[in-house]
């Protein structure tokens, strides 16, 4: 566990690749709370291939520290191309690892991003049932 931000994290913070909102999203969620200093809103687009459901795109808007922004971006990166079933297994540890480590006080950012993904999936599956 490093005590400072990694270059990789700073790069994802500085040049996030997945910001914005997907217009015709299949799911849309917001996690966090401005009082606590972090709010992440995610939109997701899913594509079907046979009976596989693949995450085609995720975009985010995040209010929060550099770690929150980078975590959101890395989450989108890691989730894209995965099936819904695979994505359900995505852990915050894998985000931390992908970022090359994180100061202990910032680990909650990756947890929040993963929470966002799980909620996206929940909403997606709920909608599917309603159809």
């Amino acid at each position, binding site marked *: 566990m490093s005590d400072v931000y990694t270059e990789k994290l*700073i790069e994802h*913070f500085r040049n996030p690749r997945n*910001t914005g909102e997907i217009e015709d999203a299949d799911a849309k969620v917001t996690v966090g709370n401005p*009082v*606590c*200093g972090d709010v992440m809103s995610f939109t997701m687009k899913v594509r079907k291939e046979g009976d596989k459901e693949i995450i085609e795109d995720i975009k985010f*808007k*995040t*209010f929060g520290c550099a770690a929150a*922004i980078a975590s959101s971006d890395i989450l989108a990166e890691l989730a894209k191309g995965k099936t819904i079933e695979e994505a359900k297994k995505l852990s915050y540890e894998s985000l931390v690892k992908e970022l090359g480590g994180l100061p202990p006080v910032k680990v909650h950012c990756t947890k929040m991003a993963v929470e966002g993904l799980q909620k996206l999936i929940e909403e997606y599956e709920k909608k599917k049932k309603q159809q």
Partner: protein
Amino acid sequence: MNRYVYLDNNSTTPVDPRVLDAMLPFLKEKWGNPNNVHRKGREAREAVEDAREKVEKMINCKDGGVYFTSGGTESNNWALKGVAFANKDKGKHIIATPIEHKCILNTCKWLEKQGFDITYLKVDKEGFINLEELENALRKDTILVSIMLANNEIGTLEPVKEACQIVKEKSDAYFHTDACQAIGKTEVDVEELGVDLMTISGHKFYAPKGIGALYIRNGVKIDPLLHGGGQEKGRRSGTENVAGIVGMGKAAELVMEEVSKDKEKLRRLQKRIIEGITSRLEKVYLNGPSDLNKRLPGNVNFSIEGVEGESTVMMLDEYGIEVSTGSACSSTKLVPSHVLIAIGLRPEIAHGSIRISAGRFNTDEDVDYFLEVFPEVVNKLREISPLWKG
């Protein structure tokens, strides 16, 4: 990166090259222990006493002396714990403000666990205490009042002179002020203020980190915080940080020579930054005194709606600009600044606060560059913020 602009002088200041020059001999051939009677020791002793004189002169110390410590944190801990333990038979009540530096507040918390009773005065929207409330808070068993001279986050210059007068008239309590931020940025005179104890930190006025001092007026009853070999007239033991002390002495000399010039420049840059931000961005709110005569020269603090402070700091950093969010000392924590909460800010607004603080080495060009980059960074972050409905 186009340019490097450091605007975080309330966090720490660069070491003035003239300070380093003064220190170097004491890290090279003059490494003696000032407690020794031989030549090497005596040469170190003379340097330490020469530095003490300079620091004493800088604060116009006439009645009492300056004792060297490892920094503002130690001086504040010492002032509070030292007075508390030495006077606990007289009383156990202490008065402070809620916008003191954490090293005062956490010391108070610890003293509460040891049976002391702390009253925290309220502060208004700009961070000022109320003198009447202070007067009413004084009790028979009040042994100490601690009110900072200049707040490190929002630059409030507290009415220490007036507060001290009231305390002296209405009680037997000692008066301590934390002057870490004020020194080097405005004139500080213990005789004019009338205080009994005052905290000084070297790295806030161009000396290195890890050196500070406590001014103690004659007659003040205070226990040591560091017991031992009897250095500093038995009040603060430990082999002296000679190079650091010499550096702080030189820094004090430079403050005496340059503070009025520095102050004028800091006021100008401060004004330009405040006006520049206000005119270039919407939904930004100045924290701390709007009357610049009651504000620490060089200090600026804004809440920026829709963006979070740390990410703003990090993004500015990419442009070579260094500023802070909240109090630098707690910036790895996720709690909003206690100062901003104390002046009544909602946490979500407090999270978006940025402190910009100029110092001796800043120029008008630094401010030009800052004012060019800052709105761009804020807009970039607002664009990806779910809280910004532009």
